């Protein structure tokens, strides 16, 4: 199929884009890398009358400021995968982006576009939750900061106002004694995740027991989901000595089972809800153990 006809305008700045978006109302959409929006147009799942291209609105590179990895929203997936600062300060994200799309999609798709698209199977969205990321959104009234934990509302729906645009993604830079893991199940590499799990584990000062942990999941609900602290009880103060692949006697299985039990994923053509829940259990336990092993230095 081909896209319905629409008008196109390239915005030279975010302020211009916000103005055009406010003027365009319901009928206007922001075009960033176009790797989600353009398929929706080609499949006629969206019918905007105006596309506002922001590709030329910003040319900043990723940077680190005040303990935060600052990703300009237009940072392409390929840059996330390869950029030295991203690999050093958020290796979780670089590893997760390996699973995103294909080489062509990664050459064009952007981190801000991916978050704004709010796909419930999003690798990048689950990393944003696991790392406690924030986005800066610019609207007609200026800028505000939105935590990732408040950004995702439902299928392809965010808490952004109609004329707000994500300009930056701020990710707390990785710290010493922190370990990460990204686990994903797909039938073919590059497919949308059936289930993906992003985990961060931080050890106490003795560098053996867990001081804090965060787990986020994709493919399990109408949006990417952050496991609440009540689901993670038993992790703090514990060690995870079990094998990443075959398990063992530690707190990971109980936490994984609790998280799986808290979810009610839908059946769809790719997998049943029961299978997804089972994947949550298996992949979460693996993710916790691998993140722990990385934090202790046992795994690179």
């Amino acid at each position: 199929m081909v896209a319905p006809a629409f008008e196109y305008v390239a915005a030279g700045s975010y302020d211009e884009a916000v103005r055009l978006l406010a003027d365009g109302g319901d009928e206007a959409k922001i075009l960033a890398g176009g790797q989600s929006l353009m398929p929706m147009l080609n499949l006629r799942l969206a019918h905007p009358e105006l596309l506002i291209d922001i590709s030329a609105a910003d040319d900043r590179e990723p940077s680190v400021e005040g303990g935060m990895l600052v990703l300009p929203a237009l940072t392409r997936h390929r840059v996330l995968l390869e950029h030295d600062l991203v690999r050093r300060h958020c290796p979780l994200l670089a590893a997760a982006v390996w699973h995103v799309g294909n080489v062509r999609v990664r050459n064009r798709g952007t981190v801000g576009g991916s978050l704004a698209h709010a796909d419930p199977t999003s690798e990048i969205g689950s990393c944003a939750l696991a790392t406690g990321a924030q986005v800066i959104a610019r609207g007609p009234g200026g800028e505000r900061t939105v935590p990732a934990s408040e950004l995702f509302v439902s299928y392809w729906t965010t808490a952004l106002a109609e004329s707000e645009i994500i300009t930056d993604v701020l990710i707390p830079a990785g710290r010493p004694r922190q370990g990460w893991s990204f686990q994903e199940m797909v039938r073919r590499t590059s497919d949308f995740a059936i289930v993906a799990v992003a985990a961060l584990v931080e050890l106490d000062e003795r560098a053996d027991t867990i001081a804090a942990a965060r787990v986020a999941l994709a493919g399990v609900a109408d949006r990417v989901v952050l496991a609440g602290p009540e689901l993670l009880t038993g992790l703090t103060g514990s060690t995870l000595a079990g094998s990443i692949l075959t398990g063992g006697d530690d707190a990971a299985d109980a936490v994984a089972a609790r998280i799986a039990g808290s979810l009610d994923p839908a059946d769809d053509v790719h997998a049943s809800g029961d299978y997804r829940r089972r994947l949550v259990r298996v992949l979460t336990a693996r993710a916790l153990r691998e993140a722990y092993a990385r934090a202790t230095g046992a795994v690179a």
Partner: protein
Amino acid sequence: MTRRRLVLSVNGGDHEVWVLPSDTLLDVLHDELGLADVRYGCGEGVCGTCTVLLDGEPVNGCLILAVQAAGQKITTLRGLMGPGETLHPLQECFLRRGASQCGFCTPGMVLTALDLVRRRGRPSRDEIRYALVGNLCRCTGYTKILDAVEEYAGQAAEAAPAEVRS
């Protein structure tokens, strides 16, 4: 909707076209400029048959608007060929290895593989697999395509040191 005049730089030559804002680069290259080596497959960025190089990087022709490509260098498979349509060495490898049957996926495969070899020098078989995961082939079963790319990467690595290859 009104048409706009654009100049697209395709395979080393400038082409004036009048396009709708909603025309994709694929629409214009295939339908207006008659480049049969850029093909509609899925319209979702999944199959790779509309692959073109934009300033040297593989992109989905079906997911980028023609108006967005103005001012950038567009290369299709044909742009790799020498004078008199002599084959690119990677195409020779595809022929020699039987890596092309119906040929529908071949332009996308060749452009994507060439980008990989330019960036990675001599990629492992797993790296080739990963780079080509977004290029679907319904004939060959992929093995011969991997063989062809591996052979070409070996040749290219011997012919020139990595920093000279462009």
